[in-house]
């Protein structure tokens, strides 16, 4: 947890009787019946909501290395306590498995069995006999089992995380604290967490969660992707906010990036206005254009057939990024050709006559796959990931390209393919050759490594298009891990250096001379203000989560190309990312009136 606070009035205890000096109170200068305090972070998905919070229990911390049984507790008593805790964990996992379905259900059932596993419990009991506390004993016993499974590699290595998950739950049970994971509640709440992981998406119920607030995690963290996909207002890196207590009522402004404790009538009205506005925000009509008629196709990022159907219904003009990982994640082995063909065809069928850009497997770093990536790399973000897994596991990419080609046959979608993590023109050439060999006619590459932005002209001599992945481009340009809260200020695509790399990519495409398209498929495209800047920089199409289409379309329709170019200039020449964002937003008054 990050203890330092950038909030104007941090409220570490979360108690309502602290002196009131919140931003709003100070600005209005009026006395409030209830004290207000504000936490400031980064607004990553717009929306204004008032509601009670629930805290996500923190990660279970490791017991002290030499933690011994408490004086007066026999080893039999400690072992019995451990067995009871293990049984309770087994019961709760079983209960969860009943609610799950398919493969998820069987994995939960297997995990429930691990909680009471005789091998695990007996080796912990042995450590208890030697004097360790129950918590320390299960901690070490599970660690050696996990290490053993990890050492077996491939198939079993992935399950080692299940053993560690079970360990965390048993220790939480022994300590009498809440189990780690998304809290369960019957009534809607605002989820406050340190940060969210991709795995939390599965257990997050969007009908119960009103908004997301994190104390850590940057504007490029997984929380943002989850928030946008579910359409939840979200503020990240609001340091200190996880010191609030369950049930505290707050006002979340996902546009401004603020969380106000004990909101008043004014915020209640803002929240009501947002809810009304959201309904009024005209649905996207299926043609992205500026005020002067300049066309900017708006496409959607999807991760499977059901996403694609929803995106088509929301008016998406195609798919700008099909994340093929969905086909591979949670798998121990490579999916077969037939499985892949079926999965891709489901997406193609949702967009007859439209463009579908398929990104080849992007494993590694924050998306490890047991059969492709090496979890022991010291710097996974700089490691064998994306296109680079082709070096260590040749064949997987060729088979995927074959599957994409087979899936494209007999569909009406225009199928384009692109490789992630391309750094050189040589790699682009090689990828284009592989595509050609598979019968795929429109190869392209992602620009997310700064070297690719700088050499876009050479790269585009070999491929037909590029697509900017702004999340990774930002993390690599700023040398700032996108998961780290303390680096959040560096990790925004509003950084003038990142905008400059986008401008250079467009310039490279123009210099190449064949008017090849430069799209954006990163989270930047979903920020309506940034979308205007991207178009002003010369980006030809934008791809985003389907939920952002109507807001982006509404703001784009409010400016001309000349105005967008002017705003892009303003952002490029701004001294800081904050100034760039403020200057552009100040010139787009529609943003505020729509609550975006």
């Amino acid at each position, binding site marked *: 947890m990050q203890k330092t606070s950038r909030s104007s009035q941090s409220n570490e205890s979360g108690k309502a009787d602290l002196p009131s000096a919140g931003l709003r109170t100070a600005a209005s200068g009026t006395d409030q019946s209830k004290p207000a305090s504000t936490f400031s972070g980064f607004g990553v998905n717009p929306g204004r909501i008032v509601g009670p919070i629930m805290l996500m229990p923190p990660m279970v911390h490791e017991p002290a290395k030499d933690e011994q049984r408490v004086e007066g507790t026999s080893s039999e008593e400690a072992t019995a306590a451990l067995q009871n805790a293990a049984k309770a964990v087994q019961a709760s996992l079983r209960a969860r498995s009943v609610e799950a379905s398919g493969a998820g259900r*069987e994995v939960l059932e*297997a995990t429930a*069995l*691990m909680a009471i596993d005789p*091998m*695990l419990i007996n080796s912990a009991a042995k450590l208890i006999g030697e004097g360790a506390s129950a918590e320390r004993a299960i901690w070490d016993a599970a660690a050696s089992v996990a290490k053993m499974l990890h050492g077996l590699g491939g*198939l*079993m290595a992935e*399950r080692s995380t*299940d053993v560690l998950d079970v360990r965390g739950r048993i220790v939480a049970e022994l300590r009498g604290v809440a189990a780690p994971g998304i809290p369960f509640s019957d009534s809607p709440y605002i989820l406050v967490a340190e940060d969210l992981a991709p795995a939390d998406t599965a257990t997050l119920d969007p009908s119960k969660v009103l908004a997301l607030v994190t104390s850590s995690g940057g504007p490029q963290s997984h929380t943002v992707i989850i928030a946008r996909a579910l359409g939840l207002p979200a503020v990240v890196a609001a340091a200190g906010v996880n010191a609030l207590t369950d049930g505290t009522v707050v006002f979340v402004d996902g546009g401004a990036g603020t969380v106000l404790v004990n909101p008043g009538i004014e915020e209640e009205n803002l929240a009501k206005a947002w809810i009304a506005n959201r309904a009024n925000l005209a649905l996207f009509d299926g043609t992205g254009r500026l005020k002067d008629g300049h066309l900017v196709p708006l496409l959607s990022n999807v991760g499977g057939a059901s996403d694609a159907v929803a995106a088509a219904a929301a008016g998406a003009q195609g798919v700008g990024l099909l994340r093929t990982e969905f086909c591979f994640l949670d798998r121990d082995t490579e999916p077969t050709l037939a499985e892949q063909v079926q999965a891709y065809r489901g997406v193609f069928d949702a967009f007859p006559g439209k463009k579908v850009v398929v990104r080849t497997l992007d494993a590694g770093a924050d998306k490890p796959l047991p059969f492709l990536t090496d979890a022991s790399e010291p710097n996974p973000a700089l490691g064998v990931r994306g296109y680079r897994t082709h070096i260590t596991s040749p064949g997987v990419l060729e088979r995927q390209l074959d599957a994409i080609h087979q899936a494209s046959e007999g569909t009406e979608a225009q199928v384009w393919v692109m490789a992630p993590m391309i750094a050189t023109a040589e790699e682009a050439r090689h990828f284009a050759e592989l595509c050609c060999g598979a019968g795929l006619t429109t190869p392209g590459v992602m620009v997310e490594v700064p070297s690719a932005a700088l050499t876009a002209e050479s790269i585009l001599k070999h491929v037909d298009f590029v697509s900017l992945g702004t999340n990774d481009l930002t993390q690599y340009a700023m040398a700032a891990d996108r998961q780290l809260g303390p680096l959040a200020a560096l990790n925004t695509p509003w950084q003038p250096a990142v905008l400059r790399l986008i401008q250079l990519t467009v310039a490279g495409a123009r210099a190449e001379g064949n008017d090849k398209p430069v799209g954006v498929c990163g989270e930047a495209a979903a920020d309506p203000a940034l979308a205007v800047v991207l178009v002003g920089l010369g980006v030809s199409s934008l791809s985003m989560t389907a939920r952002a289409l109507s807001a982006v379309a509404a703001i784009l329709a409010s400016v001309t190309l000349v105005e967008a170019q002017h705003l892009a200039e303003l952002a490029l020449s701004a001294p800081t990312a904050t100034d760039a964002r403020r200057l552009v937003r100040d010139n787009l008054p529609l943003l505020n009136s729509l609550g975006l």
Partner: protein
Amino acid sequence: MPERTAVIASRVGLHARPAGIFVAAVGALPLEITIARAGEPADEAMDASSILSIMSLGASNGDTVVLRAEGEGADEALDSLVKILETDLDAQ
């Protein structure tokens, strides 16, 4: 002591899902059952009611394992467990 050999039919071997189904079946039997790779001494056999022990065997598709049990009903119990191991549980 009654024993049976079985050839692992699951495509991914005795991994979490198939191992879970097998362990659940073992747990339902009132007997102590062990499992070992073919050729390994009986006193190094693993507790078949432990999913983690089973997974640590690392038995792949096509590998042969030996099940052992003693007591009333051991033969029938072993036969039923062999049937589970020799079914491709991933295909279901």
